[in-house]
């Protein structure tokens, strides 16, 4: 599924977060977005999913078109459009009062009105895919960070999205747990899923990304294949950003 963002502007109070932001993502592509903190990466993802409205510009997602809205509320946003995009959050946001199976099967059962046992069946398959079929009856509080994030991915996949938006999905994890999440994402990529990721994982970007996009101050500064953007950065700011990231 195709995503096309054109000249997006977004301000919070006096702060310009997105300032004429342009980005296209083709179906099946894996795009990694990098950039200094506060550069607007996460805001862009949240705008795509309608968790935040845009002030001006336009976003095309498949045949759908997202227009600027005055309200900051995410309710007017079409649930249908949201369903097409799975979202995985930095802090997992699992439902603490539901088991792992409940977390994954809730939306298919309640939103897609799948019969409960079908929803469970689907959920178990997805849990198997992320390697957690044995944890179906656990509660989120009983899981490690990496396991939680994998449940969150399974939960997002349960709605059969066309694209997965990943918002710094490894930032809350201990270093030794990051790979379990990244491995799952790589597997998804090889299954043909469109991935749009905000991350600091340069290694992952080099290995798995089709394109790397560097943004600063609400604008796309560099956009190209990883070897070009990450290894021979032309832009001064990008160079210093990468050298700081690799520390």
């Amino acid at each position: 599924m195709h995503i096309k963002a054109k000249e997006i502007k977004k301000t919070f109070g006096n702060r310009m977060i997105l300032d004429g932001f342009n980005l296209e993502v083709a179906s099946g592509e894996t795009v990694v977005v990098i950039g200094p903190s506060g550069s607007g990466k996460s805001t862009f993802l949240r705008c795509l999913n309608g968790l935040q409205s845009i002030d001006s510009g336009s976003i095309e997602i498949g045949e759908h078109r997202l227009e600027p809205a005055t309200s900051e509320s995410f309710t007017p946003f079409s649930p249908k459009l949201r369903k097409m995009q799975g979202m995985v959050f930095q802090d997992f946001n699992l439902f603490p009062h539901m088991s792992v199976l409940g977390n994954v099967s809730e939306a298919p059962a309640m939103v897609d009105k799948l019969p409960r046992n079908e929803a469970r069946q689907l959920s178990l398959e997805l849990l198997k895919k992320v390697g957690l079929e044995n944890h179906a009856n656990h509660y989120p509080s009983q899981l490690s960070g990496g396991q939680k994030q994998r449940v969150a991915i399974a939960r997002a996949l349960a709605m059969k999205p066309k694209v997965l938006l990943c918002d710094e999905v490894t930032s809350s994890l201990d270093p030794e747990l990051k790979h379990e999440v990244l491995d799952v994402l790589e597997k998804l990529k090889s299954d043909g899923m469109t991935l749009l990721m905000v991350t600091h994982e340069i290694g992952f970007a080099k290995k798995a990304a089709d394109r790397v996009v560097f943004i600063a101050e609400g604008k796309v500064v560099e956009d190209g294949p990883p070897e070009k953007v990450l290894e021979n950065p032309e832009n001064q700011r990008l160079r210093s950003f990468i050298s700081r990231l690799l520390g």
Partner: protein
Amino acid sequence: MILQTPLLIFLALCQNPAPLIWAADEEGGAPYVFRDGKLEQVGFELDIIKALADELKRPIEFKQYAFDSLVPGLLKGDFDFAMNGLEINEERQQKIRFSKPYYIYRQQLVTRADEKRFNTLLGCRNTPGAIVGTMDGTQAERLLNQAKIPIRNYSSSTEAYSDLVSGGRIDAVFLDLPMAISYALPNKALKFAGKPTARGFYAIGFHPKNETLAKEVDAAMDALKQKGILRSILVKWNLWDECQEELSPGFLFEEEGYPGASMNSILEDNHAWTIDRYLPLLLQGTLVTIQLTLCSFALAVTLGLPLSLARLYGSRWLQSLALMYVEFFRGIPVLLLLFFLYFGLPAIAESSGMSISLALSPFTAATLGLGLNYAAYEAETFRAAIQSVPQGQWEAAASLGMGKTLAFRRIILPQALRIALPTTTNDLVALFKDTSIASVVALVELNKQYQILAKSSLKFVELGLITAALYLALSVPLGRLARVMEKKLTPEKR
């Protein structure tokens, strides 16, 4: 100078003897001692007191004291004597020393003017569902109880008669003739049913050890009778009748020692205050307390949740309405609310000419009052709980395609209820104990039952401990149940 000061004080004391403290209950109403239209203290007993003070050459000071606590208060030494339509009966005679009587009372049954079903106490007993209003701790209450007539207790005659007028809750009032003369006689909506019955004596009560004072007052009382002062006071208050002749010194009853109030046919004064007699009554009170707790809490929660939603997600208009509700019901005392619901609503309905009676039963009024009050607290608890569910939960639900209602119902509310549970449980226990104030609307729950029994039997300690044990036996498991529920509702913490 140094020697002079104590001397002066001594002299001053001789000239102005310390005032005697007289206890009575103004709330009991006319014609004993009460406030008139100008809020001045008046009453036939006040007149007698003034005459006694002249006779004794000692000032007498008034002390306000609840009528049904007069005997315990006297024994406790809170005042010198009690004079407030205190009836001589055997039970009281065993505990306190009575003066010579100053009035011979009888009981008068009063009904609404249009009452056709009965005209006597016996007829009333044979009328199914008929309830008779009376006052706590009076001889009338005792007589009704012995006659096994369903009663409702009031703490003042005014409340009883006005409740009879407003209709629906009681069918008659059985109280001392002076009260009937003061309230029912002038009221066209009421009528005297039958003749006054059950004669007895009003006398002044003293501590049994205060024989000296009692003798002095007896002598003074005799003097008032001989001089005709007592008679003129009773005439002034429209209380003089042929019965009062028997008060004269040397009359027959003096030798008999003023037997306790009569109505011998139904009177059997064998008050053996044993546990098998009062425990069933306390358990009955406990049952009422439990029912009241559950009903009013159910009301509080069913009202509280929509209120919290209105506060959080309602239109501006709805939000301020819910806020007003919360501020109003949190801001007024429950006691006032109960009083208003019970006594105020019927008055409003009457004065506005509404065809339906708003006379709520004591239980309904108490449930409504406590429920409305606690709903304000529950609304705030729920609001805080809903708000403390992290924003990320809303976002996660939304990103899965859930609408706002679905997300609230399946994701936010279950978590909010878990957060609210400890506070809500606390409120439940607090409400359980707050039910005790329902006694102001004549509901006999556990605490009221204790007061009634303790004041009649004077077993304050014994009954108090049993009552406390009954309260604890319920509130402690309540807390435990809440913890079990909390665990059950939070499987992720097991």
